[in-house]
Each structure stands twice: as C-alpha cells, then as structure tokens.
C-alpha cells in the first residue's frame, strides 16, 4: 500500500504512547489503546518516525517523490506539508533543503542585502504552533501591496503570484506546515510601513509569527537601527551576526 499521509499501522501499534510527546504539533493521541494521527493537524515532518522510539516500527511514512522526478499529481497539495516541515525535505524547484534560503548567512559573499535595503523574514507557525498556508497568504498579500521584492529562491515565492502575493492554487491554503517563511527585501525606509501592515495581519490569523529584520552594518553600527527606534520596533538582544569573513563574489 502506498501511503499519502503519515500513518500509524493499527495492526502493529501496541499503544505504548512513546511516540506521542515527540510530535512537534501534538497531532498524535491515544485512542482505544492505539496511537492515532490527526491527519488534518499533522504537518508531515516525520518526527514521530525519525525519533525511532516505536518498539514495533508501526509508523509508515509516505514515499514522497524525489526532487527532479515528475511530481505525482495525487501528492499535491499534501506534499507541501513535507517540504515546509521536514528540514531534510528538498524543495523541488530550487533543489534547496529546508523552508528558506541562506538569507544573510552568506551576504558577505553574495551582496544580497545592500546598505539601503532591509531584509524581511516573516516566520509563520514558529515557534512550534504550525500554520495553515492561508494565514501565510494574508501577510504575503499585504507585503506584495507594499511593493516588496520576494526572494526568488525562497520556496514560498514559488507557490505565489509575486505581483499579488496570492497562492497560485487556492487548494494550497488549507495545508498545514510546521513553519513557513516569507523572505523579501525592501528599501530601508519602508520598514515602519511593513511593520504596521504585519501588525494588522497579526489580528487576523490563527497562529503566531516572528519577524526577522536583516540589515547591513557599517563601522559597528546596524544601519536600520535608527529607523527601528523611530518606529518603536523592539528587537531581541540576540540574533545572527555574519562576521564578514567571506570573499565577496563581486569585490
């Protein structure tokens, strides 16, 4: 039998419940001394199987089509859950693993974010709540209206119309993922507008999101910081720093 969703083989399950706490979205429960997966809540991350705690190997994972092969129509849209939720899943159109790109991690080499540009990452469903893609779309539409530039290599960009931010296929909206990042950039002076628009979206969604703000530094100063202060946008004291040790592709 070819499974199209993560399943627990009822004939094997001994109801020990060991896999239950491993599910990142709490989609596994015990019913009638058997573990069952709520298929609507499951995000296809495969964590329950990967943990290897089942004493009888009852977890059956779909054999998702490998990148480069022709996608079987019956896998779509369910396979979107796997692409966004399993860090080892490889997004077929970019060949990149995971839900996002290298963003600022290689900015010293690529020069993707320049002095006058701010990078934005809107991470839906994180931390640990999960998100329907329809909620991500709400932010995507607002950002598109503000004229942001969606990152080409980001998986999200491949399933939307970049002009409107809307999903190319309305069926995708009901799919649920562990997290999904919208990656884009905009002129730095737009940061307050972007923040305001996302605060409006926050009132309309049934999940959480975190906002990443990427900025270049000069002589130890974070270039976007004065604009964040002016707009009263608070950021955490910790985050990622690219040390600038890479060789630029264009010197």
């Amino acid at each position, binding site marked *: 039998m070819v499974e199209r969703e993560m399943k627990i083989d009822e004939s094997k399950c001994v109801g020990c419940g060991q896999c239950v*706490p*491993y*599910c*990142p979205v*709490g989609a596994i429960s015990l019913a009638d001394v058997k573990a069952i997966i709520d298929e609507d809540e499951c995000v296809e991350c495969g*964590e329950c*199987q*990967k*943990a*290897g*705690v089942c004493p009888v190997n009852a977890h059956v994972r779909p054999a998702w089509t490998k990148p480069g092969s022709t996608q079987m129509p019956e896998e779509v849209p369910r396979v979107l859950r796997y692409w966004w939720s399993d*860090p*080892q899943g490889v997004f077929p159109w970019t060949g990149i693993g995971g*839900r996002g790109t290298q*963003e*600022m*991690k*290689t*900015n*010293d*080499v690529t020069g993707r974010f320049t002095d006058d540009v701010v*990078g934005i990452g809107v991470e839906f469903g994180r*931390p*640990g*709540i999960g998100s329907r893609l329809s909620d991500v779309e709400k932010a995507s539409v607002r950002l598109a209206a503000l004229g942001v530039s969606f990152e080409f290599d980001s998986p999200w960009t491949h399933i939307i119309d970049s002009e409107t931010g809307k999903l190319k296929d309305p069926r995708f909206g009901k799919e649920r993922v*562990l*997290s999904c990042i919208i990656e884009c950039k905009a002129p730095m002076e737009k940061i307050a507008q972007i*923040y305001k628009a*996302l605060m409006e979206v*926050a009132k309309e969604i*049934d*999940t*959480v*999101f*975190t*906002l*990443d*703000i*990427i*900025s*270049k*530094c*000069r002589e*130890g100063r*974070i270039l976007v910081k004065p604009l964040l202060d002016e707009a009263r*946008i*608070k*950021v*955490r*004291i*910790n*985050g*990622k*720093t*690219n*040390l*600038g*040790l*890479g*060789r630029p592709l264009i010197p």
Partner: protein
Amino acid sequence: MGGGGRGVDPSKRAKFVEILLKHNPVGLSTSDLETRRRFRYVKGWEGSKDSGIHKSAPLEEIKACKTLSGGSAVFANFEDVKAVIKELVEADLGASVVVSGIFDKVHEALKEAGKDPHTVNMSAETFGRVDLLPEPKVLEITTMCGHHMVSSNLVKHLAGEVKEERMTAEAAAVEMAKQCTCNFFNVERARKLLTEYISFF
C-alpha cells in the same frame, strides 16, 4: 556558529572545523567530503543512545577524518566563542561565518579580533495567537532548535521523567538535542534550563 561551506577551498573547509574542534564545543556538525557521511557530535550522547535516524559521532572519530567539509558548532562558554572568533579572523579562510548569540557580546568579541560585523538578522517579538504558545520556561528550551523539532510536549514529558528520577537532566537534554537534526541545540543550556524548570513543580 556555522560556516566554511561551499565555494571555499576543501583544505580551508577542514581548517574551519579544526578551529571549532579546538575550543570545547558541546555540539558539532560536519560531514566527510569523500564519503559524504554526516557527523553529529553532542556532549553526553553516546552510541548506546542512538535511535531512529539519530546517530552520534564521537569527537575522536571526527578529529580522525581528514576531509571534513565545513559545519557548525555550539559552545557553552562565551570565552570559547571569543577564542574561535579570534582564530577564524586570523586564519582568513574566506568563508562566510555566522554566529548566533547576544549582539553586544559577539560584536565586542569581533572588534577585539579587529573586525566589524557585516550583516545582522534581528528578531522582533512573536505576534498573533501568542496565547497558543507553551509556558516561557518550556519555550526557552524548544526554541534552541530553530526548526522546532523539539516539541514542547517532549520537554514536559522528559521534565516529568527527571522529576520522578527515572532519568537524569543530562540524559533528558541529550534526548532533546537528538531531535534537532541540524544540531544547533545547546545541550548544556538545556540541562540547566530543565533543572530550573523542574524546580517549579
């Protein structure tokens, strides 16, 4: 801390990991360029605790590999991070290096090494249905895995096991770290946070 990847000369990629290995990492992830085997080291994770897809690699085995290909490491002590930054600046490998940590401290360490930061990625607050989030103490642990493969229910379950003395806090922290396949979970910090958490109930 991660870096030393594609586009960089293989010998320099190996040098990058050598530097990480010298400064007491509590977690390290790399791979062998020749065999493509991926190594995951987490302090306290021994082969007897391997399960499912999660396989541990002892530091000795990683050190013995001559064709390491970039990677990442986690440190429990900022003095070690400072020493790594200093050595990486001096080594001038030409590879992008990213450090996750408190900006002021990382930037100060970088300045001491004679460099300014290039780009930062800052996080604003969490927005939307924050009422759905687990309690802050649990969240402090789960968010150490950026992909959130360490579930809040697992943290609560293992906290119960430690409280009932069926497991040590060290073993519970390792079990959590195993689920973070990218290997950025700080097992030492998890042990401390878990010990604090169980003191509340």
